[in-house]
């Protein structure tokens, strides 16, 4: 321990009346944000995820998935938070969208019109609905960790919603966010069209 630190501790003791001996203050753990290079995915992957996300949550009179750059956060979440099985299903799901574009329209997904993209993903969403219902019936007696994964498009849809509505853009521009409400009102007026609270 250097003299300086000892002096500092003495000063703290004098100022506050407490001696914090061997005080090596450490705050709550703060973690650095992740960059693309720390994920399993490329810049092109992220661009594609953003395009898929934009079909699920499009820009309307408010920002959409691309405005929130959901693609990057999807890449981060899939790399770090998903189980290997979920990661595989997500990656295969994204690949199958590309394949389906080719087989249905004979074009890359990125070259499809807005209507074509929407029709393609809507058909996948329907397929996912049917698939999940069957899975649910088959797995209703299983424990959570033993349950089979939902349809890969469901993973993609859920992750799009999550990364969008937990983004600063989604929370502030599409939902409503107040950092410090200051009071609680459990009888707060609401009219149709008013946005939901982000948190």
């Amino acid at each position: 321990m250097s003299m300086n630190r000892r002096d500092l501790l003495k000063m703290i003791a004098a100022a506050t009346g407490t001696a914090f001996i061997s005080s090596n203050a450490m705050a709550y753990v703060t973690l650095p944000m992740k960059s693309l290079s720390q994920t399993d995915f490329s810049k092109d992957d992220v661009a594609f995820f953003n395009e898929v996300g934009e079909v699920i949550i499009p820009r309307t009179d408010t920002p959409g998935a691309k405005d929130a750059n959901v693609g990057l956060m999807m890449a981060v979440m899939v790399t770090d938070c998903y189980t290997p099985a979920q990661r595989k299903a997500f990656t295969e799901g994204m690949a199958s969208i590309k394949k389906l574009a080719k087989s249905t329209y004979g074009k890359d997904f990125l070259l499809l019109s807005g209507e074509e993209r929407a029709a393609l993903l809507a058909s996948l969403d329907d397929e996912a609905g049917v698939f999940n219902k069957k899975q649910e019936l088959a797995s209703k007696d299983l424990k959570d960790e033993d349950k089979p994964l939902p349809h890969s498009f469901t993973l993609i849809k859920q992750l799009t919603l999550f990364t969008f509505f937990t983004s600063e853009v989604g929370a502030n521009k599409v939902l409503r966010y107040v950092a410090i409400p200051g009071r609680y009102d459990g009888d707060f007026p609401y009219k149709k069209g008013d946005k939901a609270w982000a948190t």
Partner: protein
Amino acid sequence: MANNHYDAIVVGSGISGGWAAKELTEKGLKVLMLERGRNIEHIKDYTNAHKEAWDYPHRGERTQEMIENYPVLKRDYPLNEPTLGMWANEKDSPYVEEKRFDWYRGYHVGGRSLTWGRQSYRLNKEDFQANGKEGIAVDWPIRYEDVSPWYDYVERFAGISGSRDGLDVLPDGQYQMPMPLNCVEKDVAARIQKSFKGQRHLIPGRTSNMTEPKPKEGRTNCQYRNKCWLGCPFGGYFSTQSSTLPAAVKTGNLTVRPHSIVTEILYDKDKKRATGVAIIDAETNETYEFTSKILFVNASSFNSTWLLMNSATDIWDGGLGSSSGELGHNVMDHHFRIGAHAMVDGYEDKYHYGRRPSGFYVPRFRNWGGDKRDYVRGFGYQGSASRQGWGRDVAEMGIGANLKNAVSEPGSWQIGMTAFGEMLPDHSNRIFLDPNKRDKWGLPVLAMDVEIKENEKRMRKDMMQDAIDMFEAAGMKNVQGYDADYFPGQGIHEMGTARMGRDPKTSVLNGNNQVWDALNVFVTDGACMTSASCVNPSLTYMALTARAADFAVEELKKGNL
């Protein structure tokens, strides 16, 4: 270190340790507070307090790496990005599970006072008498009347908000204005009152979140951000840092030593008194000894007992307090994760503003006021009503603008509540020192052998069915009971293992929280509990600590310690 002698040593800096330090320093004693973990300074070190999901690398979610590093924490909600590091590292500080036991520990200044649930209820008269009447375990050596003035005292200082409801089952205290029920909860409360003819009540939660400021203590009232577990920059809820520590610091009588793992209470067998403690510096592994006239052990229930087990082993194999045969026994928690949820029709022109860090409470009604079940004791419910957000089931909404518009608006109102049940003290539910395993510092570790028994299992049937019945009686829709399974420890309300009693042959502590075999050692955290009640226990630890500190100083003055 120049000075190794103090009037009093307090082991631990959580809810009860903070109170011990405050009371003893304010009464003029020079106090050394020892904390095994790092320091966390009020406000300055609450580094995540203003963050939202988008400020975290994974939006606050857990990563696979975290899951791997925390095999116990991963079992439940405490493992997440915002509070990472606020729970004991399981690799450094392992324990052994003879039976599954989820142990969530806060190893830092403030302990779990920073991350606690803040619900603050008094035990009632019956709680202190039931063991004696029913012949279960041993009788409490004290009664409600002994603790009542101390509840008054700690409630005023800690700042508890709540309603005064005039119920014997849940005695009223010295409260600030309650955090209000919302429009749905108010109506449900009225319907339950009517349907159950005044035998069941739904009231605002009583919580240590303040609704009125305490300017003298530099504390602002709750700002309704609902981020308490990140440390409150407003001092809006009770923690060691916001409340008891600044009061103790102000006296000029307190020394705090973080990174100090107390390994042993030093014991003089001729005088039958403790003389001090031995510690390991958690960073340097150097050992030190500190001496004092009295000792307050507030290391959290199991760690307080661990310390007793490791002390005076040259006299008693099982450690200080083991002469009773009860040290480490009678582990209790609150069993829960069972209840019901439902949908609420209507109220579409109503919403909520602000994030209330509390909810409603349904006090115990079973085995009360003439009700008689096939089990003893009872349970209370904690719950809330709210409108659904964007995370609701969106299967039918498709994709695109329709989906976006639909989930950008709040969904239906929903309501849910979870029962917290009393767990009986049972000698066979115990913790003990594992003969093989050691922690990072070479110290022995605890093994847990705890399970819920028949009484709790029978109670759980009512805990689910009564919730269903109440929601149905209140006109809720799609009422669904749930039982998410309970494992001991999950309540994070560990109690018992060094119980209070009237007889040194059957209890570790007397009615003033003194260890029978070392009267200058006081244990005033959850370890001392003779029975568990069904209410959240921390307020009772505060009251018992203040009471014991007052007694200890009187005894010191009389020359009895």
